[in-house]
């Protein structure tokens, strides 16, 4: 471009056609140089890195990536026999620790304390839900012997497992300051062994509960209305319901789902002899602990309403009979069915009960000396 001003420039002159050959050649040269620059420029850092030798990719990176198993399980082996003994870095430990320390412990504590606080508040505001009409003296049979046995079987196991489990979860923060390290060690050892031994019985209790309580626990339209009326918990707003109300059905299905989840995860944790690694164990622990605190929180509500929270409720599970007025106030549709079936006002006659629940043929008792008595 240096000689541009010296050129006689008469642009408007129509004497020449197109660009002069000299200019065209020069433009071509510029374009070629530009092309070469564009092509070579990106290679410069590579070349500099290559020649400078200061930025060689670390040949050890591959090894440490394998140690950390960044691209799946490493091709590793060891003379040490044991589950995952060839794993150099445990991939789930830190995540499990964070879940337990930062989620399970604090969130679980807030959930349980919150539930207790809510129940205390409810107790203060609403008090014990009374039998509005008093006791009628007429009894309605509600739960069979087998249902009650299985309920309390599961309940005893549940409370024992919940208490021992909570000691293991919160003992370090709550009990060590009280009992000291040695005292709490004995407590925790007892709780751990008790939890591990009683745990495997619980699945059978859950199964028995499902078998004996499944009937009548399907949700229907009535439950929807029951939920909209807040289960009749508010004064003067009764909610209609059949044999089970929406809350009881919800609790039943919680027992089923939580019970199965907690049983399977618990068995995985308790029987670590099938070669399950830390990933499976940690996952099982997450499920076990997470479900457990929700299960326990929900059970607090169940225990509250079944004992101090409502007059006339506990006897359904202790003696198996409820007062007709209790049934009228809490399970009106069921009472109507029972009245129609002539089951209201039955006497809690022991022999009648045995007949109904055990289906024993009592014919033999009538005449002494027959074969039945010999047995």
């Amino acid at each position: 471009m240096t000689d541009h001003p010296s050129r006689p420039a008469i642009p408007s002159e129509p004497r020449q056609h197109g660009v002069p050959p000299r200019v065209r050649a020069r433009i071509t040269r510029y374009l070629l140089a530009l092309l070469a620059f564009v092509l070579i420029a990106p290679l410069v850092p590579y070349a500099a890195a290559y020649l400078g030798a200061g930025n060689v990719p670390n040949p050890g990176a591959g090894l440490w990536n394998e140690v950390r198993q960044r691209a799946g399980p490493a091709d590793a082996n060891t003379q040490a026999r044991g589950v995952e003994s060839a794993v150099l870095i445990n991939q789930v430990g830190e995540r499990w620790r964070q879940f337990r320390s930062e989620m399970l412990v604090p969130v679980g504590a807030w959930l349980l304390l919150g539930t207790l606080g809510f129940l205390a508040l409810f107790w203060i505001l609403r008090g014990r839900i009374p039998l509005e009409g008093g006791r009628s003296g007429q009894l309605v049979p509600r739960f069979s012997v087998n249902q009650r046995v299985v309920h309390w079987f599961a309940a005893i196991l549940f409370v024992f497992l919940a208490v021992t489990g909570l000691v293991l979860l919160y003992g370090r923060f709550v009990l060590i300051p009280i009992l000291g390290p040695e005292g709490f060690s004995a407590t925790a050892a007892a709780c751990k062994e008790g939890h591990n031994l009683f745990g495997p019985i619980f699945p059978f209790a859950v199964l028995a509960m499902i078998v004996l309580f499944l009937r009548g626990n399907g949700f229907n339209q009535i439950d929807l209305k029951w939920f909209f009326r807040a289960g009749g918990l508010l004064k003067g707003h009764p909610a209609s319901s059949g044999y089970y109300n929406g809350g009881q059905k919800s609790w039943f299905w919680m027992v089923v789902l939580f019970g199965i989840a907690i049983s399977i995860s618990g068995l995985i944790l308790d029987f670590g002899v099938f070669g399950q690694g830390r990933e499976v164990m940690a996952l099982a622990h997450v499920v076990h602990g997470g479900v457990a605190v929700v299960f326990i929180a929900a059970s607090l509500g169940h225990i509250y309403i079944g004992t101090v929270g409502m007059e006339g409720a506990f006897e359904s599970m202790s003696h198996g009979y409820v007062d007709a007025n209790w049934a009228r106030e809490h399970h009106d549709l069921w009472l109507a069915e029972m009245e129609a079936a002539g089951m209201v006002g039955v006497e809690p006659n022991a022999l009648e009960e045995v007949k109904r629940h055990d289906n024993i043929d009592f014919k033999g008792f009538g005449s002494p000396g027959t074969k039945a008595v010999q047995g």
Partner: protein
Amino acid sequence: MFLEFVEGPLWYFSAVVFVVGVLWRLVDIWRQPSRTDLAVPRGSGVPGALRTIVTRSWTAKGFSRGATFHLVAGYMFHIGLFVLLIFAAPHVKFIEERILGFGWTPAPHWLFMVASDLAFAGILLLWLRRLMHPVMRKISTFDDHAAAILTFVVMLTGCLALLKSHDSLRAIHMLTVCLLMVYFPFSRLMHAFTFPVSRAYTGAAMGRKGVSA
């Protein structure tokens, strides 16, 4: 300190009460006057006695349906209890060191645990049925409940001491064991020794009458 007292003086006291009490009860039963059977026996009493000891271990015909619960839970509890009592490694060790001077091959840990689970489930179910069943509740006395609860507590404290590393837990287990042993001869727990006696007595009487029962 506490463990030494429980495993020392208290243990010896309980063992003496247990042995003397059980023997005294058995001798007392033996010396009960029985009415002389004047009838000419139609058969020997011995086979009847032996047969009845065995046959009464199963439900009689006609009661099988109603007694399934007791049969299953009863055997769960009793078999479990005897496996864990006689074949648990710590018990075998205790028997060897403190009672007989010799031991035997203990059950593997898993069998001990499974037996314990069966026993725990069995005793809980049986006791709950005692509470929940109107007839069972009516015929149960304080003794029945006390024996069931005491046995359960002994088993529970044993379960809690499974880690075998804390003297306090072992002492609590031993304390409840001592309580049970002192209570044993004066309660229905005596059925552990009297059941063959009672069955044999009935069986012998039936055998002499020529009745298969």
